[in-house]
């Protein structure tokens, strides 16, 4: 049924997807590579590579902190894109989605930006502050270059859901913390009907993100959606290792991170 997912042929699965999010350069470009490889080993299907931004409107305090650390390490949109070939050289095979706010893209310019994405072998693009109505030009440029432009839908997207879902590429990002945060063990009725409605119109896998932080959440979402997107929780796991990293205990940090990820998504 789900036929459109490809990421240039690199994503053949259409269910049970694990899509982790890392901020490029948090706390350093070298460690981003190491964390990405560990996530791949633990079954990640797509990597969302976040570009740090000074004013990340759609992000909570955890990702804001990560962005600050990454900006301090000198990260930028251009450098984040150029990190992708280095990830490949180190053994990363899963498709990479560049997650960036729109302003840095504007400063590079659309044409040069897409050239950079193409030259560096990026398979997907997500711009959280570029809603459907403002994204016509970017979407058509992405299509031309064979780059999946990832769209988001929210529970309050209402009548916009159909239009967004029908145009979705790669996978469709459902912004929903409804019923999956805190102690709840079951999805709320609203969250379920929202995901159902999205799936009805989508020809690409439907992945749910925002607020997924425990293995229970992961299991729950897997019952209803085609994939889970995990961001803040992974950033917090990295934060928990900052002391080890600073004191040079890299192996210990990576081992610990891997173990936590395994428990989270098994």
């Amino acid at each position, binding site marked *: 049924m789900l036929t459109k997912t490809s990421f240039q042929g690199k994503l053949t699965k259409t269910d049970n997807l694990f899509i982790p999010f890392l901020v490029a350069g948090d706390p350093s470009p070298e460690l981003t590579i190491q964390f990405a490889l560990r996530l791949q080993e633990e079954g990640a299907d797509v990597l969302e590579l976040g570009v740090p*931004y*000074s*004013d990340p*409107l*759609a*992000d*909570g*305090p955890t990702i*804001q902190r990560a962005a600050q650390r990454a*900006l301090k390490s000198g990260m*930028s*949109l*251009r450098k984040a894109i150029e990190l992708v070939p280095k990830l490949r050289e180190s053994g990363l095979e899963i498709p990479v989605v560049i997650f960036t*706010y*729109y*302003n*840095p*893209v*504007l*400063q*590079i310019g659309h044409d040069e930006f897409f050239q950079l994405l193409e030259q560096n072998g990026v398979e997907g693009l997500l711009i*959280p*502050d*570029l*809603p*459907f*109505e*403002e994204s016509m030009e970017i979407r058509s440029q992405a299509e031309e270059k064979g780059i999946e432009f990832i*769209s*988001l*839908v*929210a529970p*309050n*997207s*209402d009548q*916009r859901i159909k239009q*967004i879902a029908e145009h979705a590429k790669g996978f469709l990002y459902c*912004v929903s913390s409804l019923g999956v945060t805190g102690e709840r063990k079951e999805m709320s009725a609203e969250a379920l009907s929202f995901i159902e409605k999205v799936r009805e119109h989508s020809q690409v896998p439907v992945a749910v993100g925002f607020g997924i932080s425990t293995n229970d959440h992961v299991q729950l979402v897997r019952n209803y959606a085609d994939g889970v997107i995990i961001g803040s929780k992974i950033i917090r796991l990295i934060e928990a290792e900052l002391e080890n990293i600073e004191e040079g205990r890299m192996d210990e940090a990576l081992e610990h991170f891997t173990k936590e990820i395994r428990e989270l998504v098994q």
Partner: protein
Amino acid sequence: MLQVFPDLKGRYGDFGGKYVPETLMGPLQELEEALDQAMADPAFMKEYHHVLKEYAGRPTSLSYADKLTGHLGGAKIYLKREDLNHTGAHKLNNAIGQALLAKRMGKEKIIAETGAGQHGVASATVAAKFGLQCIVFMGEEDIRRQELNVFRMKLLGAEVVSVSSGNGTLKDATNEAIRYWVANCEDHFYLIGSVVGPHPYPRMVRDFQRIIGDESKRQFLEVEEELPDRIFACVGGGSNAMGIFYPFLEDSSELIGVEAAGKGTDTLEHAATLSKGTPGVIHGSMTYLMQDENGQITEPYSISAGLDYPGIGPEHAHLFQTKQVRYEAITDKEALDALKLLTQTEGIIPAIESAHALAQAFKEAPQMSEEETILINLSGRGDKDMATLMEHFQEEV
């Protein structure tokens, strides 16, 4: 005939639009529909004008500054006295309009961002008046600089949330207010204080501030029987300027927006967005902003917290590009000198924000003829700035 802006996509030429997370698209659409209905409803507009008159004390005066005019020589100088508006600045005009709209939409809780605290005070004021709950987001640095306004807001019953991200100023407070709105948009109304943000905010705030220009035009024609030759207003986000300029856009008056040059536009410490910035996206809108080569938004500087903002309303960006408005920049020092001159010639202590508009007008007035006229939007009074003024003038007075 002038083209009507914004268009249906919320654009002013190349600027404006809605660059927001998907979660805000629904609430913005709900707001736009409610706003359009309200503005077309004579009963709503009647109530808005009634509150402006009975509660805010409008119309505010148009004062001829005779002693100042004599001192400078040249053009006759008139002041639009928004400092006489209730709560001491033009901010209340917009807060009243949006609070009435929030009530009409059935939203009992309002959120607001504030820099100097004037918009926070205006929001807390209308919340008290109309029985709404109010949360004000304010940068921790601004909380320190504007202690008195923080107390005023709390006394009025508002909750003040300290924002420590970034440099702890207006930009960061706005980010945090937007984030809070994203998570709580079902029952919260976001009361933006300037002509910034995603569509329909820039239009809504302009339309609730155009009362300044509408009154000025009527008052000016009464005393001078013709329109002013030049109109000056300070610009941070740009709401008092849009308010006074908008009704004059098709007229012969020359319009001059005055930005904050801080320690000078040749330094890194200024807030002169149009003079020194470049186009991009900030707070949901395509406009001019101050940023580095990687598109990271940079921190502005101005002695005046109300102008200390790295962006500017999208309609100003459009008016700048089409040269319908001339934009100038005034330094901290020039603004303080102008503030002192107005205070000592006319007995009016203006807000430091408004003093930027004064300073530019004072540069131009002596070069104009005695038959020409100048209108300056005196957007607020200086009471809130006393601590800053004491630091600067202690030894001179």
